[in-house]
């Protein structure tokens, strides 16, 4: 489950997030950006490095994630 949310309308498609992603989980084209749920480990490096706050770490979803993991 993805804890990282992208605000695509805010994105400048600059590629910082792709450069720091250890899993190569982010696909960035000219003006589209997607995180692969399969590859992403929610490490949040992309969130920290985004210069313009496009990526958000959804802390509020952690409980939901725990619930789904231990179901």
């Amino acid at each position: 489950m993805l804890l990282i949310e992208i605000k695509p309308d805010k994105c400048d498609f600059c590629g910082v997030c792709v450069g720091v992603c250890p899993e190569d989980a982010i696909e960035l084209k000219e003006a589209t950006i997607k995180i692969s749920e399969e590859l992403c480990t929610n490490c949040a490096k992309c969130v920290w490095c985004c210069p313009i706050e496009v990526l958000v770490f959804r802390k509020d979803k952690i409980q939901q994630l725990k619930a789904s993991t231990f179901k």
Partner: protein
Amino acid sequence: MIEKFYDVIVVGAGPAGTTAARFAAEQGVSVLILEKDRDIGYPVRCGEAVSKDGIEPFIKPDSKWIASTINSFVLISPDGTEVKINFNRTGYILERRIFDYELGKLAAKAGAHILTKAYVYDLLREDGKITGVKFEHNGEKKEVKGKIIIGADGVESRIGRFAGIKTHIKISDMECCVQFTVSNINVDASTCYFYFGENYAPGGYLWIFPKGNNSANVGLGIGGDKAKIKSPISYINNFLENKFPNVPKLTMISGGVPCSLTLSEIVKENVLLVGDAARQVNPLSGGGITSGMIGGSIAGELAGKAIKENNFKLLMDYPKIWHSRVGRRHEMYYKVKNAIYNFRDETLNSIAHSAIKIPESERTLLSIFKIALLDKPSLLFEFAKIFFY
């Protein structure tokens, strides 16, 4: 018209990519450049400052892509002390959208084919060997074969990953940048301004690079571990609101500058990486245009020769040539960067106070460095780390 097969495929049409393509094509081999954006040179992701000496070997300076000519720097410490340094060489602030376009034309003139809006999403492999690239163009999936692939795909550096090279960088080495190009700003047209300190740009610097007619690039880069605490966009907004309220903002761009060592692997099988993709940026200044073009020229020329002589072992010379020309110097800059990365405001102020005592005619970056050491011996300790560990 794009062929089905090329000797060399270059992914990315920034200065490193088009220079690699040009140098390869000049060897008489067939070259294709694939660029994911619709334009070469746009969007600009750069502060646009270069030295004249740095670019002259690759392109003749032309007023149509020189926004301003620089002959001095002003370094501003956290307490506002301004240290002016006369630059003993000539600097330019570029119009990258025109500059990159001209480099693209030079590659085309040498014979390279160019396709924009071409997004490379994987390498093509046959019998375990890399034989080309897979890409999307206008929504269609396509393939093109190539004997040598040059990854010039910038900070993202995915071509390297597809080839099995670890290209992602640690966040403290990623300078996270935002820049506004503003107008109606009253700054000297031949001076670059650099602001240092916690309030401006922790783990980096804030710059004002004039672009003539009272316009300027105002931007900053901060280390990724610092950006984690407060974002670059909030720092730059703060600065502009305080120092230059109401300046019209013509553009806003974000970007990342990989201020690390060159990747330990910049060639693997028949794949070479150049420019930001190879982490060939000067890790101290964050400048990557000149060094990227040097990397591109070395890789392009070797690729062309390898094809012509049908000797792919030549590609293995690339890291050695890169390191002797530039890479070794970058290793030293990287150590300096790490030593000053966490300098506190008091240290930066103290250096500035010493520096302004040096007569302006004798003031150079090196003399500031020396005086800073003498004036504040504790600094020796910090700089000793640079050279002795």
